[in-house]
């Protein structure tokens, strides 16, 4: 299977800050890839670099087998892009927006656009400026899929939409865009969206791709180990696979990728009173992976400790 997107050592600085750091990404044709990360992790910058809207400081990008730095218009016509916030010309009516985009694409599927607009009950005469955010997203989706693209790149497509609209939008999106052989890359920080759609995920943390694996594998490999000490917990030594170790009252919570014998030996050395291994769902795994050392305010930890001592 060939790759729709390949990046090699892709790097971008804004000023002195490195927002994308030597990113090596390989997305096979036909896959649905969810690019995850917190705000400012570098997701949008990565997507904009893929599309040539932002120039990388280092590295190379191949899109549909072509160097993205010199992407031919014909290749660009095979790539759809749904930008964050769904920018459209607000003075246009929906019909004008369709008529504006149509002449640029050789394989414009007018029937599909009408079908999508009908499905969402969007009248062609309505002005974009009078649409809700959800409706704007629907129009943008219709315009994105109309050229029958081979590759769809969606930058946080559900951002700003309420829960119901988001769910509707996502289900429609899956139905509309998932056809055989079509590759989809979408960024999000709404994990439930990703879980429903993506068969592979990448997690960006401070511009570094920390995870790149099938969605199920990620969920299965990240575990939380809770150690109870009955006293102030000791420090846990750094070791491969350990994402985080945080004291919570008399407990020590470890987040570990693929726990193994080495981790168990370290745990045994600390002699905890008890130990519990917990499975994490995608959201919990993502949070553990990306939040770093910062936690809730210490006052809550203190309260928890107080409640426990009262209980005893």
């Amino acid at each position, binding site marked *: 299977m060939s790759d729709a997107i390949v990046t090699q050592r892709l790097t971008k600085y804004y000023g002195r800050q490195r927002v994308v750091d030597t990113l090596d990404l390989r997305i096979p044709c036909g896959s649905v890839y969810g690019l995850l990360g917190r705000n400012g992790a570098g997701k949008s910058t990565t997507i904009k670099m893929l599309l040539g809207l932002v120039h990388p400081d280092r590295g190379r990008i191949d899109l549909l087998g072509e160097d993205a730095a010199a992407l031919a218009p014909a290749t*660009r016509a095979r*790539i759809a892009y749904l930008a964050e*916030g769904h920018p459209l*010309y607000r003075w246009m009516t929906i019909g004008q927006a369709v008529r504006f985009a149509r*002449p*640029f694409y050789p394989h414009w599927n007018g029937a599909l656009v009408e079908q999508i607009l009908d499905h969402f009950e969007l009248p062609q005469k309505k002005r974009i400026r009078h649409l809700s955010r959800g409706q704007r997203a629907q129009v943008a989706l219709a315009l994105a899929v109309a050229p029958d693209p081979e590759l769809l790149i969606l930058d946080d497509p559900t951002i700003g939409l309420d829960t119901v609209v988001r769910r509707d939008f996502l289900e429609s999106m899956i139905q509309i865009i998932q056809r055989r052989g079509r590759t989809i890359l979408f960024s999000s920080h709404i994990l439930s969206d990703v879980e429903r759609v993506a068969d592979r995920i990448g997690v960006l943390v401070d511009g570094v791709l920390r995870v790149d694996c099938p969605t199920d594998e990620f969920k299965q490999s990240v575990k939380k180990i809770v150690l109870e000490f009955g006293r102030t917990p000791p420090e846990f030594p750094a070791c491969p696979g350990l994402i985080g170790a945080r004291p919570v009252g008399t407990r020590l919570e470890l987040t570990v990728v693929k726990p193994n014998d080495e981790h168990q030996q370290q745990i045994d050395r600390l002699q905890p009173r008890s130990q519990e291994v917990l499975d994490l769902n995608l959201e919990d795994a993502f949070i553990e992976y990306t939040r770093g050392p910062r936690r809730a305010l210490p006052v809550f930890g203190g309260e928890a400790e107080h409640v426990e001592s009262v209980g005893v």
Partner: protein
Amino acid sequence: MWKALAFKEARENLWIGAAGLAILLFVVANQIGWDDSLPASYGFSSFGTAGGQIPFVSDDFGIGVAAVAALLAVALGFHQTLGETVHGTYLLLFHLPVSRRRLVWVKLAAGLAVYAACTVPPVLLFAIWAATPGTHASPFEWSMTWPVWRILLSMTMLYLAAFLCGLRPARWFGSRLLPLVVGAMPTFLLLEAPLPWWWLPVLITVVVDGVFLGCIQHVVRVRDFS
């Protein structure tokens, strides 16, 4: 597709052009004296009913045209560029399967067309009126209109300077407005300084416009649209 792009640009900038056209028509009407109710305090003396001055020789008309054309040119340049930035539509525009270079050429051509469509007809109207026998008690030669056409031509430097200002990223207003300051200098030079040959102001305008066009294309090529 060029038609679609040009239509979009024209439609977006129509109201600015219409405002400029309306003001210029007002200036012309005031000069001709078609509307006698217009007060002289507007600063323009009339050639028609209250006449006495020679059309296109008096400074009044030239100053009026220069002021309106300058405002129109700057407003168009900024609106065409900052409008896309403010609404985030560069992402939409530059993902269209056309090179950035061509997209910007169409934008510039449309902007200049709107500028010309809104400035040339009022001046032409005034010239035709002045050329019509019996409308005013003074001589008229078409060559007398040249200074005003020169003014309109020189304002393209301000248009391109404003376009560049809106396009290029800058940290603060001072550096953002730098191209406008640079564009204003030759523009005012051409308005104020007596130049010996008729082609010299044209040459200066063409050269400065060329430099601005080169800068615009360079910025479009290297700028990040994030």
